[in-house]
């Protein structure tokens, strides 16, 4: 397979697996991840899969950029043989609009839709988890309808409440912890996505399928209390 490689500073390399976000690219990234997990070279510190790329962090005292490139190219010949495990489906309950989703109105107006239509479109499809990143347990999802796409905010918010559901460009996602960020917020889920005490600290993993289910503010309250009891 032919991948292009480029440096990400002096301690990491980006493997460009595809140029567009699609199922084929995603499957290849999952296969490469499984392969690197099972065959980690000594100089590799960790790897970070994304939509169309995998970045490999390495120890530049053990190997230089040119040699990492060569070794990865050779290693990845073996990755195409690997079949990733079948996807899991996870349901995420969401309370849309109001205080939980202050930008729902903006997303609706931007697309010439009613807020009800935005919610119907957002819940009406299933999404693929392309990568976990940006914050602990944060899923970057593929599969959102372009009808509800909205640009990032001009300047990121200084603080976003944990478990907010947002849209940025053609992407949608859930903030597991309170963090600064530039996404348009349309709702909030009571489900915890970051589980620091678990061996795998993220509820979701790359390759999972997820669906959003609309819940009322009352249901949100009940589910949030249940989550608090389960995790403390």
């Amino acid at each position, binding site marked *: 397979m032919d991948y292009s490689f480029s440096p990400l*500073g*002096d301690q990491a390399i980006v493997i460009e697996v595809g140029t567009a976000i699609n199922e084929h690219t995603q499957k290849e990234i999952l296969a490469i991840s499984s392969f690197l997990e099972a065959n980690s070279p000594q100089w590799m*510190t960790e*790897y970070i899969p994304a939509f169309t790329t995998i970045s490999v962090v390495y120890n*530049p005292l053990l190997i230089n950029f040119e040699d990492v490139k060569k070794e990865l190219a050779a290693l990845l010949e073996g990755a195409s043989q690997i079949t990733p495990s079948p996807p899991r489906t996870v349901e995420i309950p969401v309370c849309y609009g109001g205080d939980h989703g202050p930008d729902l109105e903006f997303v609706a107006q931007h697309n010439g839709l009613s807020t009800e239509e935005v919610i119907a479109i957002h819940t009406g499809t299933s999404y693929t988890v392309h990568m976990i*990143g940006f914050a602990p347990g944060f899923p970057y999802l593929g599969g959102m309808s372009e009808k509800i796409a909205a640009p990032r905010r*001009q300047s*990121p918010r200084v603080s976003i409440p944990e478990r907010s559901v947002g849209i940025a460009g053609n992407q949608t996602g859930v903030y597991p912890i309170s963090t600064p960020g530039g996404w348009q917020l349309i709702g909030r889920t009571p489900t915890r996505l970051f589980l620091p005490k678990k061996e795998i600290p993220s509820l979701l993993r790359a390759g999972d399928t997820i669906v959003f289910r609309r819940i009322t503010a009352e249901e949100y309250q009940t589910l949030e209390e249940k989550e608090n009891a389960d995790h403390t």
Partner: protein
Amino acid sequence: MLTIRKSGMQTTVQDLGRTGFQQYGVVASGAMDPYALRMANLLVGNEENAAALEITLMGPSIHFVEDHVISICGGNLTPQLDSKVVGCWRAIPVAKGQALTFGKPRTGSRCYVAVAGGIDVPAVMGSRSTYTRAELGGYQGRALESGDQLAIGEASAVQKSAAQNGSWFVPSPSYSSNPVIRITKGRQFELFSEQSRKHFLSETFSVNSQSDRMGYRLDGPRLALAEAQEMTSEAVVFGSIQVPVDGNPIILMADRQTAGGYPKIAEVVTVDLPLISQLKPGDRLRFKEVSVEEAQHLLKLQEKKINRLKRAIKYKREET
């Protein structure tokens, strides 16, 4: 054991960071100035990766409950032991009942207080570093507050006796409030307008007051892509320089997210990261491009220097 009497501006427990969990979005954290942390640990005979206190601008007041050997490395925040100024970059014996306080920041903005034996907090996902945004690691996942009591790991007899040679110190890096920072070109460098690329490599930027362990926001000429476009999120590293739509670059630091969707104009070379970490709001900096090859060469030279210092410290310790 030591007790925090006054918290200071922001005092956290840090080691060299949490590696291996970035694929789950877990932020690496760790010391903002890894060089100073490593030196502070070596000077008291700890492993380089032992947990120490990271102190920011206005230092805390620390009360020692037992005799300890400590060292203070990084920016000079005028450390004082029982109100008498003490030197940085050396091992210092402290006696039960003494208090370590800090005065005006003279150079830099952060320093590390290492204690022989290391700060004894539980490791979370393999690291003792504090990541306050997710309330993870360190001391209860947060910055230290008045009244907190920190346990110290067991120090060996050699570690305890090695602090008598107090006149001996290691050199401080040349921290500056207007450094030239070396960078390698980012993956999206060529997508920036010609003028923005030129400005980035020639103009002076200043550090915005909205800068913290996550990122340093810079003010200066606005940078823009030649053609506006939404990016696909991908991994970022310590030192990635992202440019959001408002055109003001952000240097991603120890508590950076694992991935980002803004274009990256450059990455700061690893050996220059401590220089960034020691900048204060209002300080000015310029950027200079080097190749990845050169950046990796610089890193190897630095490691050689650290290894020489390691041997010298060991020799000095055994001499006493």
